[in-house]
């Protein structure tokens, strides 16, 4: 699909301005339909404002932006955030009348606003403070008592409300309603009694509540983790990318006295458009808790700290012995928390020094790497402007919240057509997406029925009319483009851990075969899992989306000898480890004991392997069980780049120093190679990044230097050649201190802008010497071929098919280590249709025993009308971890059927 063919805001942004207006005596060309305040801002005229936010619909309630606008009856005062430009319009923003109006509004806003700026978190970065100075009368005539209210009110565990400071701009209530789609807060009462309020029994427990704090133009909403943590003038900040999930939201990380205190969302047009989820926003707290701060060796039940040279000697000794014993005696698991540079260094170390292809960044909970890397990739902008978005993934609200936010906005606001294929109804269908169901294990059959030429057969778990509707939607959307399927974007993930990934790979292959023009957004959720796959941390895959065999000649000339055979994926690797076929298992930030869908296998593997080496930032279950632990720097403690689910590469920056003697993971790889008498060929980040650009085919033209240029702050989508024109750009990115208070000056990253900002493709990147690979670049991985879908076994009448999904706040390291997020973890339950509980004679909330082939667990039962009668729905990684959770039932291949029993 050519990028310019994408419709919507993207295309209109390219149109030439056609409306001429006069603003303060200067002729300005404005875009048709643009708001006066936007046109003025582009022309360099700032109009004061509070309620206006560039990412929400205008309401014109605060009246601060009153300006004189000419009309049929001469000039009149009108809110410039609400009036759209018209040809020949004349606007006066600083006339006597406009100034008087603005001063009057400001005086009124301050009537009841407490003058507690010295103790207010917003003081120093407050739009009200700033605009009172620039556009206020400078004095007040109000001598009466201001209103007083109890404060602060905890409207959720994360958000506190100070009603006295509220100026009723309605940014927070509009965000909750318009953007997040959950109006859990609204104005109550009227006149001088008006207040933002929740419903008494319903706290503001939204995954997106932190955004209301970010956009509040006064100190009325404050976030529990940042209350009184710092003053704005003590903050240092750097622009970076959030790596708590694979969306890759652009943020600024702010620190005070060497400690991270706050994340704010940056208005990156193609990605997060200034929004963040609360897990991303407050997950930084995990940086300070439970860290591995020095190399450690197991001693008895605990670990003793050792020095780096000793640790490197011991690890290298174990690895050298394993490598000498033959190929494939070492396994490397994890890497989704690393930077791209870390991942590349470890991929190279594993292949060339450790002589193994047993590397996997996923823990048997994602999709095959060849599927993820081989399918034509879509961007988020393409998805929100698509003819049809098909989701075949876990609940995006739980797994990739900001992607959900963008799709929801497009669905609810811009009429995007969304087809949700899901076993259990998800958040998008609750917002109006068309849904078609299927029984776990039958996903390929469903896709076959949706795309096949023949009249669709019966699909288990799907009702016939739903299949027909979905088929019609897909056919209509697919026929719209030049290539069949053009304009269709498929969000492909792994919704159910108790269902084999191969079904989704087959479904994707079928979709691609039927709709060659369709593009895919792989919905894997771990932070930099896409970067890790892109950098070759997957069996049979080399850096830059190249297969082991296709890339052998190229990489042997660049790297030296490669392993002969394709390695094992996480599950087979751990099975081999359990069988004693592995000498060393290296965990790159992976915690298989907690994260593998089959924890029993992880336990057996860690016991069966010769030695376990953990390169870890946190003490988690697996690093605590390792013989040797090497401390690694975590997010915001090292520089580099990261790759999101679009394949977009952005820079991550260092803001604080790692604890103790922790190193970035790539330096650990370099040091281990050196200890083993080898040389990885780079010893600083620049040469490492340049080598990736030179060697990895999908990364041509992308290195840290290029990413550091201001024009590429929102990153570059790899491979560059496949993406012609950027979509949806609204012009140069503005850091708007009124839209996002506290973000006024983001430190520049990397080199300053050079003349001629285009990225040069081909040719040798300047300034970096070194032997390059010889021969022609290997081709990128292509889409997998489709096969005949396997059929799942039939479900017997007494069993329920298991769905194991995920939730945003689970027992993962990031959430568990964050003091603000850990208490938000929900109770572990098993959701079933009420009739199932009736049949058992169990009431809602009572415990039941869930028995499957892999064992039995006890969970509280929860009746849910939305769950089909033949399903049992549970969420992985909940509970305390002391008793086995639902994930202990996940074992082997194929869908899992369970029975419910009373206790």
């Amino acid at each position, binding site marked *: 699909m050519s990028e310019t063919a994408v419709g919507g805001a993207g295309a209109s942004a390219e149109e030439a301005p056609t409306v001429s207006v006069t603003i303060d005596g200067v002729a300005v060309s404005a875009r048709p339909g643009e708001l006066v305040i936007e046109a003025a801002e582009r022309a360099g005229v700032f109009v004061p404002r509070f309620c206006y936010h560039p990412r929400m619909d205008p309401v014109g309630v605060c009246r601060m932006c009153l300006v004189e606008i000419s009309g049929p009856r001469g000039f009149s005062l009108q809110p410039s955030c609400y009036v759209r430009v018209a040809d020949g319009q004349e606007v006066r923003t600083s006339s006597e009348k406009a100034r008087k109006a603005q001063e009057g509004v400001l005086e009124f806003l301050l009537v009841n606003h407490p003058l507690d700026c010295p103790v207010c978190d917003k003081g120093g970065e407050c739009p009200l403070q700033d605009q009172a100075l620039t556009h206020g009368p400078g004095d007040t005539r109000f001598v009466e008592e201001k209103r007083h209210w109890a404060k602060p009110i905890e409207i959720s565990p994360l958000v506190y409300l100070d009603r006295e400071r509220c100026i009723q701009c309605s940014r927070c209530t509009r965000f909750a*309603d318009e953007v997040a789609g959950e109006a859990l*807060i*609204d104005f*109550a009462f009227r006149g001088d009694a008006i207040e933002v*309020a929740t419903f008494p029994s*319903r706290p503001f427990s939204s995954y997106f509540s932190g955004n209301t704090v970010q956009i509040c133009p006064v100190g009325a909403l404050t976030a529990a983790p940042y209350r009184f943590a710092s003053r704005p003038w003590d903050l240092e900040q750097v622009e970076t990318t959030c790596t708590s999930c694979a969306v890759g939201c652009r943020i600024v990380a702010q620190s005070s006295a060497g400690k991270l205190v706050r994340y704010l969302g940056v208005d990156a047009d193609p990605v997060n458009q200034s929004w963040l989820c609360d897990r991303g926003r407050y997950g930084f707290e995990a940086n300070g808790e439970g860290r591995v701060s020095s190399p450690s060796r197991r001693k008895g039940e605990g670990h003793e700290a050792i020095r780096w040279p000793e640790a490197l000697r011991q690890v290298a000794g174990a690895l050298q012995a394993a490598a000498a014993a033959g190929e494939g005696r070492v396994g490397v698991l994890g890497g989704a928390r690393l930077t791209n540079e870390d991942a590349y260094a470890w991929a190279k170390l594993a292949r060339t020094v450790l002589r193994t292809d047993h590397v996997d960044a996923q823990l048997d909970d994602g999709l095959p790497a060849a599927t993820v890397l081989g399918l034509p990739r879509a961007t988020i902008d393409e998805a929100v402007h698509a003819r049809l978005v098909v989701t075949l993934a876990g609940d995006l609200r739980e797994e990739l919240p900001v992607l959900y936010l963008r799709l929801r906005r497009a669905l609810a606001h811009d009429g995007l057509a969304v087809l949700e294929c899901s076993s259990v109804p998800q958040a998008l269908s609750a917002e109006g997406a068309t849904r078609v169901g299927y029984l776990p294990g039958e996903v390929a059959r469903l896709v076959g029925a949706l795309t096949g030429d023949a009249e669709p057969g019966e699909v288990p778990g799907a009702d016939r009319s739903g299949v027909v509707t979905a088929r019609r939607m897909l056919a209509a959307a697919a026929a719209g483009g030049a290539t069949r399927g053009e304009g269709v974007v498929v969000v492909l993930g792994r919704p159910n851990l108790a269902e084999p990934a191969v079904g989704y790979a087959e479904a994707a292959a079928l979709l691609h075969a039927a709709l060659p023009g369709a593009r895919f957004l792989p919905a894997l959720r771990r932070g930099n899992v896409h970067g890790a796959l892109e950098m070759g941390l997957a069996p049979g895959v080399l850096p830059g989306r190249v297969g082991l065999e296709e890339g052998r000649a190229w990489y042997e000339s660049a790297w030296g000898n490669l392993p002969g055979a394709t390695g094992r994926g996480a599950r087979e690797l751990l099975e081999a480890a359990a069988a004693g076929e592995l000498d060393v298992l290296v965990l790159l930030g992976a915690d298989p004991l907690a994260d593998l869908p089959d924890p029993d296998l992880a336990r057996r593997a860690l016991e069966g392997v010769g030695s376990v080496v953990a390169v870890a930032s946190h003490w988690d279950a697996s690093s605590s069980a390792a013989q040797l632990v090497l401390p690694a720097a975590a997010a915001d403690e090292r520089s580099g780049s990261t790759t999101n689910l679009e394949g977009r590469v952005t820079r991550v920056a260092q803001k604080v120093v790692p604890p103790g003697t922790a190193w970035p993971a790539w330096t650990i790889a370099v040091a281990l190679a050196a200890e083993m008498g080898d040389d990885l060929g780079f010893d600083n980040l620049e040469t490492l990044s340049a080598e990736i650009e030179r060697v990895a085919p999908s990364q041509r033209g992308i290195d840290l230097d290029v990413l550091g240029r201001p024009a590429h702050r929102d990153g570059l989508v790899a491979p560059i050649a496949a993406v012609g024109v950027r979509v949806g750009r609204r012009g140069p990115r503005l850091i708007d201190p009124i839209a996002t208070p506290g973000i006024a000056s983001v430190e520049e990253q990397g080199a300053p802008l050079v003349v001629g900002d285009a990225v040069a493709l081909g040719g040798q990147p300047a300034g970096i010497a070194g032997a390059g690979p010889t021969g022609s670049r290997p081709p990128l991985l292509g889409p997998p071929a489709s096969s005949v879908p396997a059929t799942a076994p039939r479900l017997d009448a007494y069993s329920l098919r298991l769905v194991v999904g995920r939730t945003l706040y689970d027992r993962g390291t990031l959430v568990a280590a964050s003091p603000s997020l850990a208490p938000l973890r929900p109770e572990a339950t098993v959701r079933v249709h009420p009739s199932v509980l009736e049949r058992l004679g169990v009431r809602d909330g009572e415990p039941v025993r869930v028995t499957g082939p892999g064992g039995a667990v006890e969970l509280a039962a929860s009746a849910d009308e939305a769950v089909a009668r033949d399903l049992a729905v549970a969420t992985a990684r909940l509970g305390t971890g002391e008793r086995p959770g639902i994930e202990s039932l996940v074992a082997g291949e194929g869908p899992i059927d369970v029975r419910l029993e009373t206790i």
Partner: protein
Amino acid sequence: MAHLDDETRRKALATVALYPERRSALIPLCHLAQAQDGWLTPEAMEDIAELVGVTPAEVRGTATFYDMLHTEPVGRYVVAVCTNIACMLSGAYETLEHAEERLGVHVGQTTEDGMFTLEDAECLAGCDKAPCIQVNHRFFGPVDPPALDRLVDDLASGALDEVVPPHGVLCRVERTVGLEAAGAAGVPAAEEAP
């Protein structure tokens, strides 16, 4: 604390069906719920939210905006004294002060026996009877302090039961034309609102 009972729920569904947008039925449903309990209980607001497809916070936001909708329990009789200009000039404040003394409560409060809630009100559109009073939305006037005493006595003794229905009842005879028609056409049609 009461959810909507079956009868109210039936009327509510029929009301929702009258509007092209479910949300438009929000205020009529608040009146139905208030007719049931005399005030809007939190449970009723949650029910209404579900019926019209908004959040409970939005129902509360709307309900608290209007003085005629009560989100706190009220007495059996809600006595609203008009204090706008016509009534004020005719002695509304004397009546109001006297009412405070007589009932032993301030404006906005309910007597301990749960009989009376006293309110001051903006113009009730009863200027011909100034100073004018509404009791459970029924007009009385002109009401000077002695008339107020008589009114309170009559209400307390039940002599006005025929005239003044329980609080929240807007019309004793419901205009059921639209409701019945919508009910006959199949109430759940409202679920399909676009």
